């Protein structure tokens, strides 16, 4: 397939995806698509710091939870629309990312990963503890009083589907623009060889911080949308380590440090999860996670650059083969 045709492929896909809700009305299937879009978007956000910035964060559930809880609690306590509440959530998530990132970036790989896991667990513990404010383990249901777009209340799955798709398109466009811009190029350099990049004037701590902040904002926005789509949040569903790991896995399986990797990864992981639930649902829960963990292991051992590398013949020259990292230390 020549490069010109390859450029049209995303547009063709977009057309197909836009049309799906017109023909498919089963809410469950639309929900699966919603989750694919959501994880693809979060994956792209995570990719900025975990892929390009080469800092493996296993704590992004913090930002998801902040986005979810902020927007929901603003509705519950102040009857404020999540369109504003969500923005506040994004801002708070950015603040959190600075608090976590500033001290943590200088830590070596595994330590950084551990520190982010710790932040995630601290957040979950705090959400559980301050029951009077957050309803703790009981969670917060969002009361449904009929269709109300301002409060993201719809009585069918289709609007949520389109919202998630819109978010994905917006974030993907931002990523595309960033790739070619100074910051995207600097991030690519940092991933390749941070020390060499610094010798060329790349202020890696600053750049990584910006990437981290942006990824936090994106994941927080997704958290807010998720909350209103599902109608109920609790610490274990929005602030768990498993969620953080799933976001990372989506990108790693798809293709770390690439633009479309997260989309492919999201499709694979979400479909795998749902399919195993459907067919092996009779078995006690956990079968899908076994497959998912196995997928992660297989990808790491056999195709570390991700499944997207199967499609690499269509790409001209960027974003190829991230296994060749010149120097393994990023400290």
């Amino acid at each position, binding site marked *: 397939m020549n490069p010109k045709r390859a450029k049209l492929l995303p547009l063709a896909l977009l057309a197909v995806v836009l049309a799906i809700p017109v023909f498919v009305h089963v809410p469950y299937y639309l929900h699966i698509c919603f989750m694919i879009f959501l994880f693809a978007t979060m994956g792209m956000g995570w990719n900025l710091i975990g892929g390009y910035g080469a800092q493996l964060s296993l704590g992004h559930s913090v930002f998801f939870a902040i986005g979810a809880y902020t927007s929901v609690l603003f509705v519950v306590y102040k009857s404020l629309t999540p369109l504003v509440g969500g923005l506040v959530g994004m801002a708070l998530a950015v603040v959190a990312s600075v608090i976590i990132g500033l001290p943590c970036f200088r*830590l070596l790989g595994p330590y950084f990963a551990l520190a982010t896991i*710790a932040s995630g667990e601290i957040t979950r*513990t705090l959400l559980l*503890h301050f029951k009077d404010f957050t309803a703790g383990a009981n969670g917060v249901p969002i009361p449904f009083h009929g269709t109300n777009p301002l409060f993201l209340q719809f009585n069918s799955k289709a609007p949520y589907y389109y919202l998630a798709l819109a978010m994905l398109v917006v974030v993907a466009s931002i990523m595309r623009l960033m790739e070619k811009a100074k910051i995207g190029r600097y991030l690519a350099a940092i991933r390749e060889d941070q020390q060499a990049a610094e010798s060329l004037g790349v202020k890696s701590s600053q750049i990584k911080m910006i990437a981290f902040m942006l990824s936090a904002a994106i994941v927080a926005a997704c958290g807010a949308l998720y909350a209103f789509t599902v109608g109920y949040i609790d610490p274990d569903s929005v602030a768990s380590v498993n969620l953080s790991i799933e976001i990372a896995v989506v990108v790693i399986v798809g293709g*770390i440090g690439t633009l479309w990797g997260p989309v492919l990864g999201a499709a694979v992981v979400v479909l795998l999860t749902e399919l195993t639930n459907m067919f092996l649902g009779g078995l*006690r829960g956990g079968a899908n996670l*076994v497959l998912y963990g196995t997928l992660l*292991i297989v990808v790491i051992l056999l195709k570390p650059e991700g499944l997207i590398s199967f499609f690499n013949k269509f790409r001209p020259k960027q974003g190829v083969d991230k296994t060749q990292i010149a120097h393994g230390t990023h*400290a």
Partner: protein
Amino acid sequence: MNPTIFLQTTLNGLMTGGVYALVAVGLTLIFGVMKIVNFAQGEFVMLAMYVSWMLATFAHIGPYPGLLIVGAVMFGLGYAAFKFLIVRVIGKPDEAFILLTLGLSIVLQNLVLVIFGAEYFSIDTPIKDEAFHMGGLSLSVPRLIAFLVALLMVAGLSILLNRTDLGRAMRATAESREVATLLGINPIRCFTIAFAVGIVLAGAAGVLLTPMFYVFPGVGTLFNLTAFVVVVLGGMGSVTGALLGGLIIGIVEALSSTYISLDLSQLFTFLIFLAVLFIRPSGLFGGAAK
């Protein structure tokens, strides 16, 4: 503040801390020798608990007599995990082994969930509720046994590392793989043994914990996080550090859950963790961390 409660809490924490140390020591050994953080360490603890439960339920072998059997099983599992999985990521960048062991922990935890279900099992041993009483304090027998065996194993490991040829070979490999090879040491063999022993230690900890903890698929995660904190506090690669770190964390956890709040006790463990990472990343006894 009631001195008896304080002493009792501290004593309990100390005893539990010994077991944390055992899990952490395995982790620190693996890191020390091969520079790999095993994110699945807790899951091996959990596996050992299930093996122990099966021995008790189907073969009527109690946890303490079963210790050797479980140890052998864990050695086999550790060896297999290394040979089929871990060895392939040695020398690759950090992300590889972080994600590999993470994937392994997900697989192990959920495989157990699928096979055994989510119910909480427990083992009945005759000494489960026994305790020594002295001066108003009670010392639960299983806890004491766990503590003593843990100390013994840590001491044993120390002897292995410092007084035997194998141990010396492992320490040389930890320092410099190239130099060790030049000295005729087979680094892969050292890595294999280090990993297997690390898993055996995790397994031993699991067995010792069964009289005191419920056995369920997620129990590993609890120990994972605590073990990491202990290892970072004590210093990656330091056996003494892991021991001391374990005791300290055990006490801190006990004190904070008694005096502050049960559900916040983990929070303090994490705060210590973060504090160590920022103030003294090499931990109490460790070498390189940054």
